[in-house]
C-alpha cells in the first residue's frame, strides 16, 4: 500500500449562531509514503482546518480519512491521541517548546505518552542521537531561552521525530525565522525526507517555502484547487493570495 494519507470527500461544518458555516466542501486527496508535500492556501481557505483533520486533532463532519490504513474519522479522543503520539510528529510556527526545560527533556516529551516498552535510558539515547542529527550535540542542556529561533525549531524537529513517526506535519515551520535560518530548516526537512524516507507535509502560505516540497496541494474556499507536480514551470510564479 503506497498511500499514507487518503482523504475521501471530507466536509467540515462549524456551527456558528443559527446556521452552519461549511469550511471544507468535499476535499479528496492522497499522499504516498515518502512524499514531501506542501499544503498551500490563503487564510480562510480551510487550510488550517484541513491540517487539523490530517493531524488527527479534529474530526471531519462527513467523509473518510485513512492514515496508514486506519480510519481516523470514527476514532475516539483517546484513540486519536494515541495515533498522534505514534504516527505523527508536529512542528509548529512558534516552536512550542516547554520553557525552563532543557532541549533533551523537550525532545523526550512525546515518549512520556507513548506505550512503547522502551527504557528511559533507551529513550534518552535516541533523543540525544536526534539532537546530534539536527546539529545541536553541544546544546543538550540548554533551555529554549538560551537558544536562537533556528536552534529552537531544530529542537522541535528532533522532538517530532522521537517516536519514529510516519508523518511529520509542519505548520508554517519558518514563519518566525529569518530567511537564512528558514533555508536551513527547510533543507533539514528535505534531508529527512530523502535520507530517512519520512513523509513530510509542509503547511504554508509562502510559495518559496512550498517550493522546497516535491508537490504542492493548493486549497481555496474549502476545495482542492490544483494538484501540481512541483517542477512544472510556472509553480513559483503563481500569485500568492
Amino acid at each position, binding site marked *: 500500500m503506497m498511500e499514507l494519507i487518503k482523504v475521501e470527500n471530507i466536509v467540515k461544518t462549524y456551527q456558528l449562531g443559527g446556521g452552519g458555516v461549511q469550511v471544507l466542501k468535499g476535499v479528496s486527496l492522497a499522499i504516498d509514503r515518502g512524499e514531501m508535500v506542501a499544503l498551500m492556501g490563503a487564510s480562510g481557505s480551510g487550510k488550517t482546518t484541513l491540517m487539523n483533520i490530517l493531524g488527527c486533532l479534529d474530526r471531519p463532519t462527513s467523509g473518510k480519512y485513512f492514515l496508514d490504513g486506519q480510519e481516523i474519522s470514527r476514532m475516539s479522543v483517546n484513540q486519536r*491521541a494515541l495515533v*498522534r503520539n505514534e504516527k505523527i510528529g*508536529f512542528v509548529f510556527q512558534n516552536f*512550542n517548546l516547554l520553557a*525552563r526545560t532543557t532541549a533533551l527533556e523537550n525532545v523526550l516529551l*512525546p515518549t*512520556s505518552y507513548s506505550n512503547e516498552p522502551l527504557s528511559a535510558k533507551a529513550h534518552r539515547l535516541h533523543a540525544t542521537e536526534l539532537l546530534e542529527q539536527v546539529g545541536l550535540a553541544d546544546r543538550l542542556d540548554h533551555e529554549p531561552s538560551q537558544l536562537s529561533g533556528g536552534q529552537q525549531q531544530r529542537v522541535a524537529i528532533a522532538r517530532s521525530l522521537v517516536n519514529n513517526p510516519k508523518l511529520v506535519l509542519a505548520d508554517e515551520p519558518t514563519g518566525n525565522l529569518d530567511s537564512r535560518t528558514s533555508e536551513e530548516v527547510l533543507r533539514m526537512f528535505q534531508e529527512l525526507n530523502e535520507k530517512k524516507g519520512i513523509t513530510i507535509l509542509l503547511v504554508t502560505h509562502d510559495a518559496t517555502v512550498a517550493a522546497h516540497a516535491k508537490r504542492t496541494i493548493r486549497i481555496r474556499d474549502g476545495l482542492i484547487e490544483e494538484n501540481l507536480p512541483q517542477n512544472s514551470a510556472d509553480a513559483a510564479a503563481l500569485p500568492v493570495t
Partner: protein
Amino acid sequence: MLKMTTTLITALRALRRNPLRSALTTLGIIIGIAAVIAMVQIGEGSSAAIKQTIANMGANELIIFPGAAASGGVSFGGGSAVTLTSADADAVARDCPSIGTAAPVVNGRMQLVRGGQNWVPQFIAGTTPAYFAIRDWAVSQGRLFGNDDVSGANEVCVLGQTVVKQLFPSGMPVGKTILVESVPLKVIGVLQFKGANMMGMDQDDILAMPWTTMKYRVSGTALQNQNQSSAAGGSTFSTSQLYPETSQNLYPVPSATEQQDLPQPVRFPNVNSILVSVPTSAQIPQAVNEITALLRQRHHLRAGVPSDFNIRNMAEISNALGHTSQLMTNLLIGVALISLMVGGVGIMNIMLVSVTERTREIGLRMAIGAQPADILGQFILEAIVLCLFGGALGIFLGQALSTAVQTLLHWPIQLSAPAMIASVAVSVVVGLVFGYYPAWKASRLDPIEALRYE
C-alpha cells in the same frame, strides 16, 4: 507504573520551573498543617496535664465501704456492716494485680485539746502509711508514722495544716502532745498543704494516726451508728484509767464473778473504709471486678448473696473533666482544619491560574499524544505533590511551634504520631479535592484552541 512515574516526574518538573510560586502556593497548607500539629500536641499535652491533676485530686482512687447490716428486718444503713477489716485491705493490696496499693481507714469525729486550744477536725483517720502514698501526700515537717507504729498501736499522730493553725497558733507542733478524747498522742509530723477536695471540703483539716491506735486506744468504736451491741458498750475507759491519781473508788468495785457476768462490748476489728489506688483510670473497671471477686471470696459470700460492701469511684468526675479538655482540643483542631480549607482554596486558585497560563503547554502535550486522563493526572498530581510538600513542612513547623511553646511558656506538650499521619492524609485529600477542578478544566481543553492560545 512507568507512566505513573513519568507523570510524577513531569509534575515535579512543572513545580520546579516556578519554585517561588510553588512555595507561596503551598504556604496555606504549611500553615494549616502546622496549626493542626501544634494544636493537637499542645491540646494532648494539656489534656494529659489535666488528667494528672484529676488523679492528684483522687480520681484514680477507689473507696470500699462496708455494706448495710440488718437485724430483724431493720436496716442500719450503709457502712453499718462490720465485715470489712484491715486484713481485707492487706489482701486487696497483695492479690489484686490492677491496683497500686490499699489502706484501711477508721474514721472518727472527736475533740482535740492542746493547752487552752481545742478543735474538732473534719477528718480523723486511723490508717496505715499506704494512705499517704495513695493520696500522694508528704510531710512538710517531721515524719509520717511507719508500719511499726501501726503494729505497735503507738500513740503518735500527724496533723494537717488547718489543725496545726487551730491548736498551735505559734507553730512548731512536732514533738508536742495533744489530747484526743483524753488520750495523749505525740505529734510526729505535719502534712503538706493540699487545699479543698472536689466536694469543697478542706482536706487539711485532718488528723491521722495508726488505725490500731485509733481503734484500740482512742475509740473502741468508730461510728455512732455502729452495730447496736457494740454501741451499747460506750467508752472502754473507766474513771480509774482516766484519772489514775484518784485513789478513792466512787463506785463499789465489782467482784470477779460480777465482772465475768457483765456483758463486755464486742470489739470488731472492722474498718470504716478501704482506700485503694489504681494506676490509671482505664484500669478502674478491672480493679473493681478484681476487688469484688476477692472480697466476696474472703467474706464467704455464695453466688446470689448480695455483697456486704460497696466500691465507689470518681470516674464520673474524671470523665467529665477529660471530656471537657477533649472538647477544647477538638474545637482547636476544627479551627485549624478551617485554615487548612483556606489553604486548599489557595491551591485551587493558583492551579487555575497555572492551567490558564500553561494552556499552550497543555495544547502541545495533547498534540503530541497526551490523553485527557494524562493531563488530568498531571495536574492533580501537581496539586497533591504541592500539598504533600506543604504537609511535610507543616509537620516540621508545627513541631517547632509546639516545642517553642513548651520551652518558652512551659506548657505541656505531647508528641502525636496519629496527628502526623492524619495531616499527611489530609494534605493528600486537600490536593485531590482542590486540584481536581483545575485539572479537569485542563483536561477538557481543545488542543486546537489551546495551541493557538496567546
